[in-house]
């Protein structure tokens, strides 16, 4: 019994050491760790906190990334909407009256900018960025602050918490000021699992 417990403890230590190594602790190590990641798929739970709300707004969805820059960001509940990013083009759809409708004339919105950034973050490119200044913090956290004060009116800062698993993020928190923040937690991540054809170009 004692031997079994000791074995488990040693195993846990080894596993946690490997997981902590994960992304690495410098920007260079993070980029190298992300280099082996071709695809990441996960669910997410998004909580919107505002001072005015009696209860946070909770949304759920699915996230899929494929290197070098394809992304599918889909809200499934309570309001269906979809952002598709592929070959430098981003399209946005909403589900209305039983069908997907592409939002025409859709201006560049703050969240679209963030989603586009995520593709870069997944590749470990935190510092090569025109919009944000990245700062590496302890405990696998990265703080991004907008370079352009005009964008800062939408998002004051973003904090990313990297998962111990390379290529996987634990959470993204968007701070919009003292009254409001949005936290997105990723669930059940799968790294390098094949992605269906057309996943980044077709509405399904």
């Amino acid at each position, binding site marked *: 019994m004692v031997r079994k417990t000791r074995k488990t403890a040693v195993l846990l230590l080894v596993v946690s050491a490997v997981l902590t190594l994960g992304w690495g602790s410098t920007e260079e190590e993070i980029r190298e760790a992300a280099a082996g990641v071709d695809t990441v798929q996960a669910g997410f739970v*998004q909580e*919107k906190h*505002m001072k*005015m*709300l*009696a*209860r946070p*707004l909770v*949304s759920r969805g699915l996230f899929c990334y494929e290197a070098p820059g394809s992304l599918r960001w889909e*809200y499934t509940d*309570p*309001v269906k*909407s979809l*952002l598709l990013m592929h070959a430098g083009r981003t399209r*946005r759809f*909403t589900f*209305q009256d039983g069908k997907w409708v592409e*939002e*025409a*004339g*859709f*201006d560049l*919105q*703050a*969240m*679209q900018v*963030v*989603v586009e950034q995520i593709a870069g973050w997944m590749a470990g490119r935190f510092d090569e960025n025109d919009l944000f200044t990245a700062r590496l913090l302890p405990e696998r956290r990265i703080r991004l602050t907008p370079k352009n004060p005009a964008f800062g*009116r*939408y*998002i004051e800062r973003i904090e990313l918490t990297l998962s111990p698993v390379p290529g996987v993020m634990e959470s993204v928190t*968007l701070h*919009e*000021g003292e*009254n*409001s923040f*949005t936290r997105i937690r990723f669930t059940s991540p799968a790294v390098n699992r094949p992605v269906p054809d057309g996943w980044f170009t077709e509405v399904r």
Partner: protein
Amino acid sequence: MTGRRMLFWPLLAVFLSACAGPPVLTPVPKESACSSRFFMEGDWQFLHRLSFAVSGRRAPSLLGVTVVSTHRRSLKTALMTTEGVVLFEAESGDTALVRKSLPPFDRPGFAEGLMADVRMLFLPPAGPPFAAGRAPDGSLVCRYRGPEGEILDTVKTASDRRQIHRYDADGRRIRTAVLEKGAPAAGRMVLTASDGADYRIEMEAVEAVRVGE
């Protein structure tokens, strides 16, 4: 009938209804026309999906969150992208207190206009009704005085649908709201502005949470 003639009569009807002023009412007891159940009572947090059409052009979908207390007569509202980025936030007491307004929601007069629309949809009128009666089209109308000489009619149509009509001091109808059964907690509300602002907002209920329970 040619296409032009087909368009003429509906347009004329809209034009006349907008110019005609509040309908003359055949009086009925206020208790029968002025049901307290027209508006939802209590403290609520509502989430709606909003579809805007401005001058006939569709704008991107947004989410609207409204926290309302009919007891305190307080109202807080925010417009955000479907992804949750807040573009506008304000609360309504005697005047609109704007906490955040980003383009295109930072135009002069927008906040006051929006808060007046939200107040009309979510809060019962402040004072008691001054008239009640049946309109020529058979609908049951309860009539209230609004701010600055406005008149607000809560309407139950002959087919038992709820509508709210707002008239300015000159008697022009400036807003028409059509509420589906269960709205604002379920179903849809459609608000049409006809005072030259020329917009239409369709609000589809997503969530309704009773606060404090």
